[in-house]
C-alpha cells in the first residue's frame, strides 16, 4: 500500500478539484484523519492501468501556498515538508480555464517547491463560451510541464490526464531552481547551514511561514526569526513582490497561449447565468426574502417531512424491545438491554432523518454556490454582533449538531471572529434538544389549542425555542465582542463562485459521512451513560438497598403486594448512588423547581443532553408503576405528583424552567472536546461550559420564579 505513488490534488476552491477526485477514484475513497490535525483527509485509489495504482490525496482548496486561515495551513505543512508521511510524489494542479491567470499563480508556486506537477485544465468549455480559446499544447511547452484538458464533472479527458501523470512520474521533470524573485545567496546559504539542504523556494517558504509549520521546534522558529532580522528580510513585502512578479511572467505566457475572441470581434461581454441569478439572490430586499424562504423550507423539511421516517424508527425500536422482553427472561440485565441500551441507541437513531435532511440542505446550498451569497448579504448584520458573514454556516449547521458546525468555522480567517462563532454556536438548538423539547412541550402546552385558530401552540412553542437559541447566540456574541477588545484585522475577500448544479453523488457522500460521525460519536456516549446510570440506580452505598424492602414492609404493613413492590422500587432508587447524587444537588436546583429525580437526569445530561429522555424513563420505570407496561414516558411524567402541593409536578412553571435550562445549558461532552481541539486550549471549553450553564441556571430560575 505504501509503495503506491502518491499524487496530491491541488487547486483553487471551485476549480473542480473534488469532481476530479471523484472521477479518478470512484468509490475507492476513504476519509481519515491527518496526524495531529482534526481535518478530514480524503484519499482514494486511482487505477492507472490494471495492476498499476496510485494513491490520490485531495487537499483543501487554496488560492496561493501562503495560508490565510487554519484550513489552508495544512497544504504547506504537507507540500513544504518532504519528511511528511503524506508528501506526494507528484501533484496535479486543477485549474479553472475560465480564470487561467489566477489559477496558474498557485500552479507556479507548487512547481517551484520542487514537486513534479501536471496541469489539469478544467472548464475549457466555459472559457470558450466566454470567448477564450486556450492552446494547451503551447501552454505545456511554455510552462515546461504536461498539460491535460479535462471536464472533471463529466469525467472527460481522464485518459489524457493519466498519460500526463505516467510521463511525469517517470521523467520527474526537474524543477525550476531559480527563485521567482531573487534573494541574497548568503541568506539561502544560512538556511541550508542551519536547517539542511532544501530547494531554494522551499527554504524561503520555511523562512516565511515557519510559525504555521508544525515540523519546526520552538528553537528552530526562533532561529528563523533571527535569520530574518540578520538579513533584513521582510516576509510580507517579499510575498507581495513575488506575487506581482509571478503574475507578470504568467501574463506574458497567457498572452501567447490564449486567443481572446472578444477582443478580435469587439464583442460586448457576455451576461452569464450567474450574473442573471445574482440579480435576484443579491437583491437588497429580494435577497433576504429568498434566504428566509429557503430557511423556512429547511425547517419545514426537518420538522414535518422527517417525522415519517422518525416514526418508523421509533416504532421499529419499540417493537424490537417488546420482542426481546418476550423472549428473554425478565431480569435486571434484560432491563438494561431493552430499556437502557436499545432505548438509548434508538434515541440516537431517531435523529438520523433530521440530521440527514439538514445536511442535505446545507450541502446543497454549498454545492450550488448559494452559501457564499448568504455570507455576502449577512456579513454586515453579523459583524455588528462580533460575528462574520462566514459565521452563518456554523450557526445554520448548529441546528443539526454543534460538532460539525464548530469544525466548519475553520474557513473563518480572523481568530477573534472564529473564536466568538465557536463559543456561541452551541446555543443554537441542536437536534439532540429536540426530543426533550417535544416531551416537555407536550406536557405543559395544551395540544388542541391554537392561536387565532390557525397556529398550533405546541408548534409555536417549539419554533420559539429555536428563535430563543438564535437570539441568545447573537446576544452572547455581542457581549463577547465587547469583552474581547482585540484589534485584529478580519477580512472578507472571497470569491463568489458561479452557480452550479449540485453533484448528488458528492452530496450523498457528505451526508453519509456526517450522519455516520454523529451516530458513532453520540452512540458511544449514550451506551456508556446508560450502563453507568443503570449501575448507579441499581446499587447503593453499603447494604442500604438490601434493607429497604424490609423497612418498607415494616412501615406499611397494610399495603397490597403490587403497591408494596412500587414503594420498594421507589425507595430503592432513592437509596441508590443515583438517588444520593440527586439528593446531593437538590438544594442547588430547588429554586428552579426541580426535585432530586430531575437532578439525576440533569447530572447524566451533562455528558450528552439527549440522555435526558432515556434517564427519565429509566428513573420513572424503576420508581413508578412497574406493572404499567404501556405507559409512555410522557404519561409517566404527567402522572408525577408534587408531594408538597399535591398537584401535578410538571406544571407550566417547571416545564418552561426545564425547557429554558436545556435550551441554554452546555450539556455535550463532544462539543466541549471539539471546542478544545479547535482552540487548542482548555480555557475556551471551560469558559463555554461556565457561561452557558450560568446562563441556563439564571434564566431557568427567573422563569420558574415568575411562573410559580
Amino acid at each position, binding site marked *: 500500500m505504501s509503495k503506491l505513488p502518491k499524487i496530491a490534488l491541488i487547486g483553487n476552491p471551485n476549480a473542480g478539484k473534488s469532481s476530479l477526485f471523484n472521477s479518478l477514484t470512484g468509490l475507492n475513497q476513504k476519509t481519515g484523519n491527518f496526524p495531529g490535525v482534526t481535518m478530514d483527509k480524503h484519499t482514494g485509489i486511482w487505477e492507472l492501468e490494471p495492476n498499476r495504482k496510485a494513491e490520490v490525496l485531495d487537499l483543501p482548496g487554496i488560492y496561493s501556498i501562503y495560508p490565510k486561515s487554519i484550513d489552508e495551513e495544512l497544504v504547506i505543512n504537507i507540500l513544504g515538508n518532504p519528511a511528511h508521511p503524506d508528501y506526494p510524489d507528484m501533484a496535479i494542479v486543477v485549474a479553472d480555464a475560465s480564470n487561467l*491567470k*489566477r489559477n496558474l499563480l498557485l500552479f507556479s508556486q507548487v512547481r517551484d517547491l520542487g514537486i513534479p506537477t501536471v496541469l489539469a485544465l478544467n472548464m475549457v468549455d466555459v472559457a470558450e463560451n466566454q470567448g477564450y480559446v486556450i492552446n494547451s499544447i503551447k501552454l505545456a511547452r511554455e510552462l515546461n510541464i504536461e498539460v491535460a484538458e479535462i471536464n472533471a464533472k463529466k469525467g472527460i479527458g481522464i485518459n489524457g490526464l493519466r498519460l500526463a501523470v505516467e510521463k511525469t512520474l517517470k521523467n520527474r521533470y526537474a524543477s525550476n531552481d531559480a527563485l521567482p524573485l531573487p534573494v541574497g545567496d548568503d541568506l539561502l546559504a544560512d538556511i541550508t547551514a542551519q536547517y539542511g539542504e532544501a530547494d531554494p523556494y522551499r527554504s524561503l517558504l520555511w523562512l516565511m511561514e515557519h510559525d504555521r509549520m508544525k515540523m519546526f521546534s520552538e528553537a528552530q522558529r526562533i532561529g528563523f526569526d533571527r535569520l530574518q532580522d540578520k538579513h533584513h528580510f521582510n516576509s510580507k513585502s517579499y510575498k507581495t513582490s513575488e*506575487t*506581482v512578479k509571478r503574475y507578470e511572467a504568467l501574463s506574458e505566457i497567457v498572452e501567447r497561449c490564449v486567443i481572446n475572441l472578444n477582443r478580435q470581434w469587439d464583442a460586448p461581454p457576455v451576461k452569464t447565468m450567474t450574473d442573471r441569478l445574482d440579480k435576484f439572490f443579491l437583491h437588497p430586499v429580494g435577497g433576504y426574502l429568498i434566504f428566509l424562504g429557503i430557511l423556512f423550507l429547511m425547517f419545514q423539511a426537518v420538522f414535518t417531512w422527517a417525522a415519517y421516517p422518525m416514526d418508523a424508527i421509533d416504532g421499529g425500536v419499540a417493537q424490537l424491545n417488546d420482542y426481546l422482553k418476550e423472549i428473554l427472561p425478565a431480569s435486571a440485565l434484560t432491563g438494561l438491554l431493552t430499556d437502557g441500551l436499545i432505548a438509548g441507541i434508538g434515541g440516537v437513531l431517531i435523529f438520523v432523518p433530521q440530521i440527514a435532511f439538514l445536511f442535505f440542505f446545507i450541502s446543497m446550498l454549498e454545492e450550488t454556490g448559494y452559501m457564499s451569497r448568504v455570507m455576502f448579504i449577512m456579513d454586515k448584520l453579523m459583524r455588528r454582533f462580533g460575528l462574520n458573514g462566514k459565521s452563518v454556516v456554523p450557526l445554520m449547521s448548529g441546528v443539526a449538531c454543534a460538532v460539525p458546525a464548530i469544525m466548519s468555522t475553520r474557513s473563518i480567517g480572523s481568530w477573534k471572529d472564529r473564536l466568538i462563532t465557536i463559543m456561541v454556536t452551541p446555543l443554537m438548538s441542536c437536534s439532540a434538544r429536540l426530543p426533550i423539547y417535544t416531551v416537555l412541550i407536550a406536557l405543559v402546552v395544551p395540544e388542541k389549542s391554537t392561536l387565532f385558530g390557525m397556529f398550533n401552540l405546541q408548534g409555536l412553542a417549539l419554533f420559539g425555542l429555536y428563535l430563543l437559541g438564535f437570539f441568545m447566540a447573537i446576544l452572547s456574541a455581542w457581549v463577547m465582542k465587547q469583552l474581547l477588545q482585540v484589534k485584529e484585522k478580519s*477580512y472578507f475577500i472571497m*470569491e463568489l463562485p*458561479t452557480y452550479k448544479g449540485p453533484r448528488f453523488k458528492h452530496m450523498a457522500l457528505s451526508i453519509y459521512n456526517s450522519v455516520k460521525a454523529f451516530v458513532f460519536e453520540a452512540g458511544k456516549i449514550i451506551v456508556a451513560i446508560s450502563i453507568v446510570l443503570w449501575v448507579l440506580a441499581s446499587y447503593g452505598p453499603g447494604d442500604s438497598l438490601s434493607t429497604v424492602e424490609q423497612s418498607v414492609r415494616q412501615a406499611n404493613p397494610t399495603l397490597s403486594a403490587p403497591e408494596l413492590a412500587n414503594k420498594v422500587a421507589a425507595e430503592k432508587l432513592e437509596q441508590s448512588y443515583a438517588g444520593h447524587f440527586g439528593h446531593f444537588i437538590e438544594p442547588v436546583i430547588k429554586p428552579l423547581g426541580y426535585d432530586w429525580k430531575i437532578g439525576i437526569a440533569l447530572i447524566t445530561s451533562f455528558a450528552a443532553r439527549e440522555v435526558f429522555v432515556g434517564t427519565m424513563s429509566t428513573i420513572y420505570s424503576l420508581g413508578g408503576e412497574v406493572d404499567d407496561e404501556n405507559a409512555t414516558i410522557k404519561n409517566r411524567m404527567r402522572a408525577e405528583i408534587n408531594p408538597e402541593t399535591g398537584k401535578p409536578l410538571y406544571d407550566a412553571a417547571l416545564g418552561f424552567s426545564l425547557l429554558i435550562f436545556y435550551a441554554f445549558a452546555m450539556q455535550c461532552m463532544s462539543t466541549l472536546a471539539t471546542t478544545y481541539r479547535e482552540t487548542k486550549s482548555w480555557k475556551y471549553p471551560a469558559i463555554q461550559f461556565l457561561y452557558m450553564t450560568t446562563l441556563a441556571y439564571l434564566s431557568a430560575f427567573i422563569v420558574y420564579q415568575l411562573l410559580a
Partner: protein
Amino acid sequence: MSGTLADLKVGEQAEIIGFTDELLSLKLLEMGCLPGTVIELTHQAPFGDPIAIKVSGYTLSMRKEEAATIQVKTK
C-alpha cells in the same frame, strides 16, 4: 479621476492603480486584483456593504473598508 474602489457606484468601471494596505494587498493580488486590471462594481449588499466586483472574469466580494485600500482610476 482617481479615488478608491469604495467610492464607485454599481455598474461603474475603474482601473486598479495601487494599494494602501500591505497585508490586504497580498490577498488581493493573489485573487487577481493586479495594478492595471479593469474592474467593475457589480453588487452592493443591503446597507451598501460588503460589495462585489467583477475582476478578470469572476466575482469577488469584499467589505467596504477593504475596498477603500484599493486605489483606482476611473475613465
